[in-house]
């Protein structure tokens, strides 16, 4: 896929003589040493990464790690000291004022930690702002604003002022304002950090839904690993202005690049406390082979699955039936028993989550939780990740 954003050796040094700092950074001197000897603060240290179109890219780090500086460098709210930022192949760092303004208008939406709404404008005129400054005709911008207001679930509040809304609703306005411009890229700076946990979770879920619907490329800043794991297709972990590791949530949990990352991961490491039975789903979508291929296909269709476990009357696990095989069996009028596959993974209910991560990244089928040959539950990849993230039991499993 095409790279939507490419960042090469992006560096920001705050202070009066950034060139000196840049020279020292290239010699490999540390941020602390540069600060001690020159008084220069290194905000971002030679960050490089590529983001694909439609990717959800999370940048995670503690306060002072340079993550907020990094996201502001991308739309040049802060001027970079060195390095390149390519957006759709165009280098934004060399653009003049007008080109930069147009790029911000057409390509880069932004959502802020403390919402940063215009208090003197209503919800609608807040959302319209980006279109208004581009001189989009009033009727057209009104229509587009209304669409994003509906998208974020704020219908009915069009004429309210920001101070009449709760924090969660204000951030919805912030999101709608960024969406109304219909930019491909959304920059989200700790967008949910100021919200209380319940609202935050709700907003995360809705953002994921919106993202799958609209296919935006999102750069999301957070200091919260749980949030990063939940949202990110890939996560970049920052420390002292430096990107320490970039990888998928699984890669980061499984192979922390260094002590710093692993100390992060340990903090939230539910993989050691949770076991398979905590996160498995009730095996309610199963079939017996006597029901035949037709019934199995129907069940898969209803549940939206591409494979289904097959058991006998005593709930002894017999095998896995994929949709392709089931259709083949149905067409050839052959027995389900003959097309079952057996190369899926099984595990016992008390296997630690830690041991399942590796399996989950390799297998394309759900993991069967088996005790005394009986199927007790099913674990899909997403339940491992959400288990790691929230440590919650998703569904009570009863026999």
């Amino acid at each position, binding site marked *: 896929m095409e790279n939507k954003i490419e960042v090469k050796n992006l560096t920001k040094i705050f202070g009066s003589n950034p060139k000196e700092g840049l020279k020292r950074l290239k010699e490999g001197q540390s941020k602390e040493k540069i600060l001690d000897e020159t008084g220069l603060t290194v905000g971002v240290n030679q960050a490089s990464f590529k983001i694909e179109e439609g990717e959800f890219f999370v940048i995670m780090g503690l306060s002072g790690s340079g993550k907020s500086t990094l996201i502001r460098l991308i739309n040049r709210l802060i001027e970079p000291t060195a390095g390149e930022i390519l957006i759709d192949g165009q280098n934004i760092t060399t653009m003049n004022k007008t080109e930069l303004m147009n790029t911000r208008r057409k390509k880069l*939406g932004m959502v802020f930690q403390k919402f940063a709404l*215009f208090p003197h404008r209503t919800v609608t005129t807040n959302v319209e702002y980006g279109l208004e400054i581009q001189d989009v005709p009033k009727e057209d911008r009104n229509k587009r604003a209304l669409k994003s207001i509906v998208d974020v679930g704020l219908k009915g509040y069009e004429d309210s002022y920001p101070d009449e809304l709760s924090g969660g609703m204000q951030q919805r306005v912030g999101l709608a304002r960024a969406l109304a411009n219909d930019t491909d890229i959304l920059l989200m700076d700790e967008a949910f950090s100021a919200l209380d946990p319940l609202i935050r979770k709700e907003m995360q879920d809705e953002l994921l839904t919106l993202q799958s619907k609209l296919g935006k490329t999102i750069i999301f800043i957070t200091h919260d690993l749980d949030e990063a794991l939940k949202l990110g297709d890939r996560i970049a972990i920052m420390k002292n202005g430096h990107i320490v590791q970039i990888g998928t949530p699984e890669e980061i949990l499984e192979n922390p690049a260094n002590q710093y990352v692993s100390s992060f991961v340990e903090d939230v490491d539910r993989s050691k406390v949770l076991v398979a039975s905590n996160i498995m789903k009730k095996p309610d979508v199963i079939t017996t082979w006597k029901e035949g291929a037709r019934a199995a296909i129907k069940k898969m269709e209803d549940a939206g699955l591409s494979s289904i476990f097959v058991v006998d009357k005593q709930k002894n696990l017999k095998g896995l039936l994929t949709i392709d095989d089931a259709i083949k069996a149905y067409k050839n009028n052959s027995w389900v028993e003959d097309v079952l596959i057996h190369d899926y993974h099984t595990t016992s209910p008390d296997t630690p989550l830690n041991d399942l991560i590796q399996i989950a990244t390799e297998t394309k089928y759900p993991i069967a939780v088996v005790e005394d040959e009986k199927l007790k539950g099913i674990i899909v990849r997403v339940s491992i990740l959400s288990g790691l993230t929230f440590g919650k039991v998703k569904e009570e499993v009863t026999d």
Partner: protein
Amino acid sequence: MNYFHLPLEEWTNRFVNEWLIPVLGGFFDSISNIVGTFISWVTNLLLFLPAELMALILIFLAWRYAGVGIAVFTFIGSLFLGSVELWDAAMQTLAIVIVATLFSIVIGIPIGIWSAKSPIVNSIVRPILDFMQTLPSFVYLIPAILLFGLGGVPAVISTFVFATPPAVRMTTLGIKQVPTDVVEAARAFGSTYWQMLTKVQLPMAIPTIMAGINQTIMLALSMAVIASMIGAPGLGSVVLAGISRVNVGLGLTGGLGIVVLAIVLDRITQGIGEKTK
């Protein structure tokens, strides 16, 4: 402490008499003409309107922006001004206040915006404002006479000098108070300098700017009274007459007239300021 003699007095006088007046006299004359014309328009307008109509306008504004109480006060105050035969004097003072305030706003607010946007301008403007505000107001009166003669024009000019600082300062403050993340948001969406100013910074600064304008009006009123010493017509000249003739009654009547005008103007402009929040 007298280590050397600094002839500041002689220098200043020589500068004014030998350079300022001969060289820039024509310039000051044309300012004088413009300001003079403006004052007589406003004064004539205020005096042309029947006192009853003018009073009704003031009562309506008071009711609209400051509530029933102040409207009633304005009604009683207008009756008082009419009954002590100070209506015309009050309108003359009001005319000087209006003209001086308009100059203060038209010149002060852009300077305030400029110094909010540029630290260099701010560092130049601030000491000048300090100077304008702390120099005793009587001191402006002398050059004002020299450059503009006697009457309404030097009154407006010195009132303008005295009353402009709050308009500048509060505009700067209002714009600087706009939260940085809101300014950042406006930039991130691709606002031009002008869009940022007119769509975000100024609208959000308006309550603060209005408070500055209210202060400007109050200062203008107090200076318009003092300016009676250089021949400004109005309530101040009534008080001045009271002082020079040691006439307690005349002084009190003129003084109460000023109080009435001050309260009405203050409450109405404050009310307008609060409505913009």
